């Protein structure tokens, strides 16, 4: 069986198929923990996980926090407003300061693409990328993979449609890499101004017309449209976006009956999804939220294990338990 040897989890582009499968298998084991009366295991007892969210986030932060708590880790929280980033400190400075408090795993959310990689190079502790700019959001990508596999029984050979602002979406990138490596066929669909043509060179199919590609889809992942992007005038209005790319009951009529609808949240209701689709029988959005905790427990557990705290403290493994 593949062993996890990476100090960090920075993106799904870096991972092999075997590593992705290991993460998903481990998430499966952790999901069982969440079903117990006492939803807590001592795996990371005595370890410290720093949640460093330098960009607003509620859901991902909460999911990581609960995952770390269920692993019995101690948690240190830094948030955008309370950090010193605003005072001109670089993200690497911040990370080094956090590391100096003997943190074992640093979970980083940052508005700049590449921030997690930059920090990972500069610190010894493990870094888990909780979203870096428009680059990747690997744990969300894993959540989507896990949920698809849970609902469809497989990933290989599925037609997965990702709809929305591909250009700025870190979720789309992580999904694309994960799905492609596990053998799904990925179609990217959105307004032409928000779908980078270069993605075609990486193996994605590109479409600007949802109604043409929706009927073949087994899974549709809709992306959140960031309201602040509107200032850059990529699209004329939300109304027009919703008409062309918003998923509603009428559009779903032409889709496969067993299509599942996903969204990383939070949903702009009436824009990406109509309320009856968001809450409808094909929606697995709440399963994604539930699975998020198991996936993040697996991620924290694996990176923490790949990184012994201090080399001098590491004796021989216990013969009985290791045997």
């Amino acid at each position, binding site marked *: *069986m593949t*062993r*996890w*040897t990476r100090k960090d989890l920075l993106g799904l582009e870096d991972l092999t198929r075997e590593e992705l499968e*290991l993460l998903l*298998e*481990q998430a*499966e*084991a*952790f999901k*069982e*923990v969440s079903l*117990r*009366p*006492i939803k*807590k*295991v*001592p*795996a*990371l007892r005595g*370890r410290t996980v720093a949640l460093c969210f330098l960009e607003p986030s509620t859901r991902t932060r909460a999911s990581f926090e609960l995952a770390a708590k269920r*692993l019995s880790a101690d948690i240190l929280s830094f948030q955008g407003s309370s950090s010193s980033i605003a005072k001109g400190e670089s993200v690497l400075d911040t990370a080094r300061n956090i590391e100096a408090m003997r943190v074992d795993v640093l979970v980083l959310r940052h508005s700049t693409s590449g921030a997690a990689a930059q920090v990972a190079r500069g610190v010894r502790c493990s870094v888990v990328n909780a979203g870096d700019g428009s680059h990747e959001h690997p744990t969300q990508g894993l959540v989507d993979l896990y949920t698809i596999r849970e609902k469809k029984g497989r990933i290989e050979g599925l037609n997965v449609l990702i709809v929305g602002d591909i250009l700025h979406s870190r979720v789309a990138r992580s999904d694309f890499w994960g799905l492609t490596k596990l053998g799904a066929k990925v179609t990217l669909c959105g307004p032409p101004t928000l779908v980078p043509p270069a993605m075609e060179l990486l193996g994605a199919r590109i479409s600007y017309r949802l109604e043409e590609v929706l009927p073949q889809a087994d899974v549709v992942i809709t992306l959140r449209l960031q309201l602040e992007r509107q200032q850059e005038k990529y699209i004329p209005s939300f109304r027009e976006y919703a008409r062309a790319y918003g998923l509603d009951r009428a559009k779903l009529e032409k889709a496969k009956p067993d299509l599942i609808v996903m969204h990383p949240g939070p949903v702009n209701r009436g824009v990406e999804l109509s309320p009856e689709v968001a809450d409808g029988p094909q929606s697995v959005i709440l399963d994604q939220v539930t699975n998020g905790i198991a996936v993040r427990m*697996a991620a924290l*557990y*694996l990176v*923490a*294990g*790949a*990184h*012994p*705290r201090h080399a001098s*403290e*590491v*004796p021989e*493994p*216990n*013969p*009985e*338990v*290791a*045997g």
Partner: protein
Amino acid sequence: MKTPILDSEGIRKSIVRIAHEIIERGRGPEQLCVIGIRTRGDFLARRLAQALREMTGRDVPVGVLDITLYRDDLGRMEASPAVHATEIPFDVTGRRLIVVDDVLFTGRTVRAAMDALTDLGRPESVELAVLVDRGHRELPIKPDYVGKNLPTSKEDQVQVHLVETDGLDEVVIGERVA
């Protein structure tokens, strides 16, 4: 150099004897259930439960416990060991639990299993059955049922092979290769 300790028949007899002892010691088989510690304890538990069923004529539920997350040596290894699911399809509260493992050595695995069980509920009692007790305890843990007491040196390697995982039933002892 490997010395045989138990053969297939020896293992079978040990399990039958342990089953008898469990029934003799207990107040009745109603609340009895067996939980094996992954990986080989799992299969031994199934055999023990089968023996108990045959003797009592009652169903004896079996569960499997994965103690990976309760180990005290996480972070002292090069990589996190793979976690497997714990599958205990019944509520342990109020039950008489027989925890089964293949070899009892330092006692750390049993310690982890106790922690894991406590997180699952409040059993009436917990007893420990092992196929081989090789000594060298590092924790105050004592088995209730032993298939074979085996004096060893710390460096010896006691290997339990089972049909389900290894293709044959045997217990052998060999010196650890340096």
